[in-house]
């Protein structure tokens, strides 16, 4: 038997009996990991007031039109987060997610507000059902559906989620995650992401929050396990 092994164990801290490596720097987890749905809603930076106002008042202003909110953009810019926030704020609203493959879910046409995620994936039959819906509609889509919505009597407000967000909004979104992961929220100033850094992140990742979070996850992990600098150099 030839034995020329090389063992390289990159686990940051011993398992089982070890304390949390995050606790050493004042956290209970990496702030930039996946969140539960509830937490995602709680930490989202969404100015919901104007959106709710639009959904509630359009019918009064233009009786012939039904309000439709369209969140348009590619993956990672916050379409689903916006839909989840609105779902939590609109009593009785139900969100339907359309997967790329597999069975197409039925639309809850009896709900007071219909929320459809990944609407560009709907088959023609389901889309026809959605366009016949008479209540306020909120959709998340990669493809602009304005034309067919207008044709079917909707007044459409399109929010281009990929449009550049102000640095302070990006900083706020990231700092909320940090605050929710601290053992003592009083220590937030030490770890806060300043607007200038958020601006550089925004530029580097073209406003894609998911990519920013992935970058910051790795940077924070290095900070905890390898004592790299925090905040990272961008």
């Amino acid at each position, binding site marked *: *038997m030839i034995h*020329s092994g090389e*063992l390289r*164990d990159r686990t940051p801290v011993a398992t089982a009996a*070890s304390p949390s490596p995050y606790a050493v720097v004042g956290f209970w987890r990496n702030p930039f990991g*996946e969140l539960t749905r509830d937490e995602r809603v709680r930490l989202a930076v969404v100015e919901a007031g104007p959106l709710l106002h639009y959904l509630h008042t359009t019918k009064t202003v233009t009786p012939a039109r039904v309000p439709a909110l369209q969140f348009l953009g590619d993956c990672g810019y916050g379409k689903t987060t916006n839909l989840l926030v609105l779902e939590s704020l609109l009593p009785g609203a139900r969100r339907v997610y359309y997967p*790329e493959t597999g069975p197409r879910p039925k639309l809850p046409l009896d709900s007071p507000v219909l929320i459809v995620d990944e609407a560009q994936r709907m088959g023609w039959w389901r889309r026809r059902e959605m366009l016949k819906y008479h209540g306020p509609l909120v959709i998340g889509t990669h493809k602009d559906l304005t034309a067919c919505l207008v044709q079917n009597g909707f007044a459409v407000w399109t929010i281009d989620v990929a449009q550049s967000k102000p640095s302070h909004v990006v900083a706020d979104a990231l700092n909320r995650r940090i605050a929710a992961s601290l053992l003592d929220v009083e220590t937030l100033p030490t770890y806060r992401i300043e607007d200038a850094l958020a601006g550089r992140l925004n530029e580097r990742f073209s406003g894609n929050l998911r990519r920013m979070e992935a970058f910051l996850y790795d940077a924070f992990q290095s900070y905890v396990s*390898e*004592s790299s600098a925090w905040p990272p150099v961008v």
Partner: protein
Amino acid sequence: MAACRVTIELDDPGKVYSDGDVVTGHVVVVSNKDVTCNGLIANTEWATHGRGNVDRGEVEQAELFRGEWSAGQTYRYPFQLPTAAWPPTYYGSYLNVSHLVKARAKLSWALDPEGKAEIRVTASDTAAQLEPPRNQQTAKAGWFLSAIIILILVGAVGMIVMTAVFWLPLVLIVLGIPMLIVWFVRTWLPRLYTGKVEIQLEPQPVRAGETLRGTVSFGSARRFSINEVRISIECIEQCVSGSGSNSTTHRTTVVTHEQQLLGQAELQAGESQSLEFEFAVPNHAPPSLDLRDNDVIWRAELTIDIPSWPDLKQRLDFAVVPSSTPDLSDNTMAEVMQSRSWLDEVLEQLSQSADDPERLRLVLDAIAENEFAVNLTVVNDYTEYEVPDPNDAWMEALDELSDVDFAVRFAAKSDVPAEGSSWRGTIRITGYLTEDSVVVAQALASP
């Protein structure tokens, strides 16, 4: 200002829990206003955090109080709650498993204040052995449901088959042919030479701290030469974020071990090979985890490198269960973490002084009297380094947190720990091998 602040005080914060031990402590409420509490709920739970979707399990909850709190008062409510026996606490790179005691005060017209404390849970059995009995009962009682599902599936398959008849030729072309090519190149061609290849691993599952023994056997259907036969053992964290077609799988390798089983050789037709190998699973090795969206996978991959011919690659997953003797006492680990930042600073200084002998001497002099609590993984293969006297009692070890190699001198050869094990103790840094970036140290004590 929040109406009240909720914190948790554990009776024994450093305790390591196992087998569903009960955790005890107090929920402390400091009330800033006169408020009505509609329920002070304490619970124990585990949850994953990291790159994957959150998997979680609640163990038990209890209502500790319901009633009025007066401004400026502090209230203490004792609790005792069982902990989960599985999964064990784990801190990795993409995946972490934390066990928490949480308390939440339900208030009217205000955000519910929450407090949480993390506890450490270890496990000495496998997930299957720790599965709650009710899950087994569910499986036994499910035959009727299974029968219905089978009937539905048969119907669905029938429908699919009818539809597929039309599309079958296209499906075969698009999917079948590339798969056939992959199988032909990766399996059929190499086996023309090697014949049937078998990997055997024992014991299965293997416990952290034990040695995994393996045998690779293959024959030679015809005369051929090989460049090498090697086995690589990897531990991979695999996490899924998102769902459906929006899901992303994140993988990172947290342990890698490569071993050459056979070098260049000429094999005769009909000659069979049986190669053995061993892998000392570190005492703190991540346990195999199979949670919904978060897994820790241990895998052995065999490569037979045949010159000018496709290599044979064969994989075998195996399970690692947690060590029965967790390798760190509470006090020692706390000590390690406390001196950690100072040690990191020193290692950084040493590394930066590598090209400046004068500065290096200054750093070494400055820390000559300092003692550092460390937790090192023993490698014991320091032949490539020029330690002062290789015949002396030296251990080469890796500090995983900094990825820095240490050569540690012991008083006697019998004190040098076994390869692959973890060594925790106190050291004094005495030198730095600049060419190899190895910290030379003297072992002072181990618990």
